């Protein structure tokens, strides 16, 4: 199973409690462990949401809004992709992450076979020109 592990923006990964260098070293070590265990698939960090843009499809014409997005409490700051046997395994790995104060979200990634099911259902339930 594949999981997306979402780290929120602005919640201060290290909570300012660890020296930055120390936090980075601990995170480097943690990523090495994830890699050795075959859990680590990918890791990306995002530039601040204030420099981002949203495109909303409310009506026919898309509405483009530039950041910052003041109303948002749940902005993505970065993410890992992990390969685990179960959600529980992902939770156990996450518990060991060297964060000081934050909330991290684990989400199961759809696999090709899940899509096969979507296709099968869509094609069964909605015949052409129906």
């Amino acid at each position, binding site marked *: 199973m594949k999981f997306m592990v979402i780290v929120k923006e602005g919640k201060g990964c290290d909570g300012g409690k660890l020296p930055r260098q120390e936090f980075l070293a601990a995170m480097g070590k943690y990523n090495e462990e994830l890699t050795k265990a075959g859990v680590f698939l990918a890791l990306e960090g995002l530039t601040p949401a204030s420099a*981002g843009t949203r495109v909303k*499809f409310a009506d026919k014409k898309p509405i483009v809004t530039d950041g910052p997005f003041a109303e948002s409490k749940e902005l993505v700051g970065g993410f890992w992709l992990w390969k685990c046997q179960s959600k529980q395994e992902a939770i156990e790995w996450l518990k060991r992450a060297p964060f*000081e104060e934050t909330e991290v979200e684990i989400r199961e990634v759809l696999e090709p076979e899940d899509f096969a099911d979507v296709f099968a259902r869509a094609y069964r339930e909605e015949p052409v020109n129906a």
Partner: protein
Amino acid sequence: MRFMVIVKATKDSEAGKMPSRELIEKMHKYNEELVKAGVRLEADGLQPSSKGARVKIEGKKRTVIDGPFTETKELVAGFWIWKCKSLQEAIEWAKHCPNPHNDGGELEIRQIFEAEDFVK
């Protein structure tokens, strides 16, 4: 430049409601265009947050909270990783995206840090 294009969740995506055949076909065509243009690097869709969990970290304390999570519009339903020359190019591509959900979809475009950003 690489961008993460986040597809925000909706009531439908959180309910695990499957997209229509029409939308699947439109999205397939759109993805093909992205690939042909060399824009699409990665794409993944997520299961509803009801299948997810959050781990709250406070010092040495770890608290596990099982989904679903209530702030639907802030949740991630899926994402692409795109390679574009500029944010403007990414916006133009996003505007051409078929509405990812029937009940009002939203995309968020965010630039990804590259290795060279850390060297600076």
